[in-house]
Every structure is written in structure tokens, then in C-alpha cells.
């Protein structure tokens, strides 16, 4: 249990059995009145946010969260199989992964966040490299980065890339946003 005075930005709390992260926090205390702690909380399962207020007498549940290092093993349908250091297998639904499913490669090291022993989030290395499988030919000599064109990388993920990126190029992708970051030049 947390008391209201423990509340701060970044703290993870539990409301009605759902884990939330406090993304904004303000402390208010009118005149001779009681302290009021106003929090914007983000649902760690859905990403939705709302504002919740606590008073100094309130007790707040602490979520049982655990983060484990794991390696991606293989996928079977909508279930993605990861193994921990003891080679124990965990099956995680594709819904938890979202677009990150495209960035999993054999053996890639990830952190899996569990809430009450149920996987709720998977953190990949922030940047991964993928080869462009398909894109329209770019205008030669055009190095502008503000004009984008569609492209598809190995594994089927689609994104937009600058005009100068060509089929067969290796690019760097931010796994948190799914966005193109850079072209990787290999000698």
C-alpha cells in the first residue's frame, strides 16, 4: 500500500486491479485545508489516461510488477514464445506486442513486464536494423529527409522512409515508435 504522500510522477499504482503509471502530478493544499494530490494516470494495459485525485487520508494499492530478461524463441499463430534464463517458455499474445512483433528476431533479448504474473509489456532494444524489401526507386541525388515514401522491410512491416532510401538498403528503426531513424551504410 502507498499513502498519498508517496505519490509522484513516474510511480506505478493499481486502481481496481489495473496497473497505472502516474504521468503528471500536482500537489495542492488550500489554506488550512487538506492536501489534494492530483494525478494523471495512464493505464498500463490500454494506454488510456484520466485524472484522479487523492486526499492525504487515502491509501493506494501497489501493483505487483516484475520485469524479466527473456529471449525470443519462435511464434506459433498469435502466441509468441519467449524463454527466460532457465529456458522456461512463456507464451505472450500478439496483442501485447503490437507492431513490435515485426521487430522480433531469433534470440533477440527483451524485457518482459509482468503484472500479477501476466505479461503486459515487452521492451525491445530501442533500435533494430531491417533490410528494405520493397520501395519505389528514389530520385537520384535527392537527399531531402522531409519527403517520405512508403516502404516494406523484411518480415512484412510497412513504414515510410526518405526518398534516398533504396530497395536492399539496411535501415535503423525505433522499436518504441516504429519509425525510420537512419540508413545504415556498410562498407
Amino acid at each position, binding site marked *: 500500500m502507498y499513502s498519498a*504522500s508517496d505519490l509522484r510522477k513516474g510511480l506505478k499504482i493499481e486502481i481496481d486491479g489495473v496497473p497505472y503509471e502516474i504521468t503528471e502530478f*500536482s*500537489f*495542492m*493544499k*488550500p*489554506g*488550512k*485545508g*487538506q*492536501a*489534494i494530490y492530483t494525478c494523471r494516470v495512464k493505464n498500463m494495459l490500454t494506454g488510456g489516461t484520466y485524472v484522479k*485525485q487523492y*486526499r*492525504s*487520508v487515502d491509501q493506494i494499492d501497489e501493483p505487483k510488477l516484475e520485469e524479466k530478461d527473456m529471449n525470443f524463441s519462435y511464434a506459433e499463430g498469435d502466441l509468441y514464445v519467449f524463454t527466460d534464463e532457465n529456458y522456461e517458455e512463456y507464451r505472450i499474445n500478439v496483442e501485447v506486442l503490437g507492431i513490435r512483433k515485426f521487430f522480433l528476431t531469433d534470440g533477440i533479448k527483451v524485457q518482459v513486464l509482468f503484472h500479477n504474473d501476466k505479461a503486459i509489456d515487452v521492451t525491445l532494444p530501442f533500435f533494430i536494423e531491417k533490410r528494405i524489401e520493397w520501395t519505389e526507386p528514389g530520385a537520384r541525388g535527392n537527399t531531402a529527409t522531409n519527403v517520405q515514401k512508403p516502404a516494406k522491410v523484411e518480415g512484412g512491416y510497412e513504414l515510410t522512409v526518405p526518398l534516398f532510401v533504396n530497395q536492399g538498403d539496411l535501415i535503423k528503426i525505433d522499436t518504441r515508435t516504429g519509425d525510420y531513424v537512419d540508413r545504415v551504410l556498410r562498407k
Partner: protein
Amino acid sequence: MDARERRTNLEVRSRVLQSIRRFFIERNFVEVETPVRIPAPAIETHIDAEPAGDWFLRTSPELHMKRLLADGLPRIFQMGPCFRRGERGDRHHPEYTMLEWYRANADYREILSDTRLLMNAVCDEVLGTRTIESGGRRIDVGGAWECLTVRDAFLLNAGWDVLKDFDADRFDLDLVNKVEPALPRDRPTVLMDYPAPQAALARVKASDPRVAERWELYAGGLELANAFGELTDPAEQRRRFLEAAELRRRAGRAVYPMDEKFLAALARGLPPCAGIALGVDRLVMLLTGAASIEQVMAFAE
């Protein structure tokens, strides 16, 4: 905030401190210094004192200053550090600077007129104008101040009568969520005559015992000051301390010793008096437009 902005804020702060001192000295107030480390802080339901050895750091110099009034000093002021445990936010810091002044044989309206004159003097000396402009806001300190009763402010903005069915929880939440955000931002605003259960150390109004002689000053969205027609009745004061102590005990919060020397001073005879506590850091925030109290402090560690 960069180092240059902090330096500017500290220069403004220095001028504010000097201006406040000059204001009170010109009006024949005596500047006093009362102890910072004390055995018995005022027992208030929602104010927590920081322990210092077996004693505490003062949450306000109020009780000692009233003892000086009882000892025959009729006009006194003090500026200095106060400490409140667990209060930290954009407008709160566990250590902050409070200005308090008291007048014997005066009531809370005279304190309001002092406050108007003080705010005008500080604006004149520090800014050279009585219109504060910062971040697209304009606050006209020199013009008419908005003055409304707490009852009207709640009827208007929260839709209930605080003098009929008082509910402390609802009062605090609505004050923060509905009333304060609706107060005018273009001029200072005074909320007057708090419901008697929110009297704290104020006396109830003779003409209407449902309310206490207490007002609060807001400007630019900041709560700046709290003033009382002071309670001078020792029996009533003891009863309120005991009531707050019981609420604190039930809430599992520290219960402070009774300040018997203060109560004895009331019993010997405290003249009718009025006084006020004004947050100096917040006044500097108002004048500089600083978004957070830490931006007007030299160190906020």
C-alpha cells in the same frame, strides 16, 4: 530555467524583502524574531511539523507573535523561514519564507487595508508599476480588488451552501477544483468569512456566528495570504486545539503538545487583534511570473 533567469528572480526577491521591511518600518511596526525551533507548534488538523530533536521546526511564528502582542507590543512583523512536513509541489516547499504581521486593537479589515497598501508599495518599488504583466497575464494590483464571501463563491461555482450543511472533504475538493479556478485572474481577489468550522485560529464573527473572521488573498491564481480576526478566548482556543488533536490522533498523525505558555498569555489578556501570514515566495512568483516556487528560491534541494 537557466541560471540567468534564476539570478533575475533572486534580484527581484531581494528587492521584495527590502520593500516589505521598509513598508512596515515606515509604519512604526517593530520587526521581531521568534524561535524557529519550538516545543509546541500550533495544533492544526492538516499542518504537519518537522521534528527537530525533541522539539519541532515552526510551521508559523503565530503563537509566539501573539505572546508578544499580549506582552504589550501593538504592531509587529516578522519575515523568516517556516517548515511544513510533506508539502512539496509547484507552490509548496517544505521550507519557505513567511511574512506575518499583527495589529493590536484592530480588526481583519484593517489588515486588508495594510495588505492593499503593501502590495501597491511592493509593486511600485520592485516593478515601477501596479500592473503585473507576465506570460500573457495582466494583474491590476492598483485597481479595485474583487471581494466576495466564501459562501457566495461556493454558491456561484460549486452550487452548495457552505453555511447549511458543511462538509470538510467536499469543501476542500470544491475549493481546489471549482472555486479557485473560477476566481478572477486580472485582479487580486479576497475570499471573506470562512464557515465557522474552517475558522482555524480566527474568532467567529459577532454579527454572524456561522462564519469566522478570516479571509484569504488570491492573485494570478496563487493563494498569497491568510488573515484572521484573532481568537483571544483561551477556553475556546484550548477547545479548538483539543478538537484538532483528536482529529489528528484518529487520522494516525503526530499530535503535538499543547502550547500552555501561549494559552496562559491568552488568559492574562490578549487585546483584540488581527493578523496575517503571507507567503513571500509566492509573492515573488507573482511578480516574476515564475511557474514554480523552486524558481524563486536560491536553493531548493
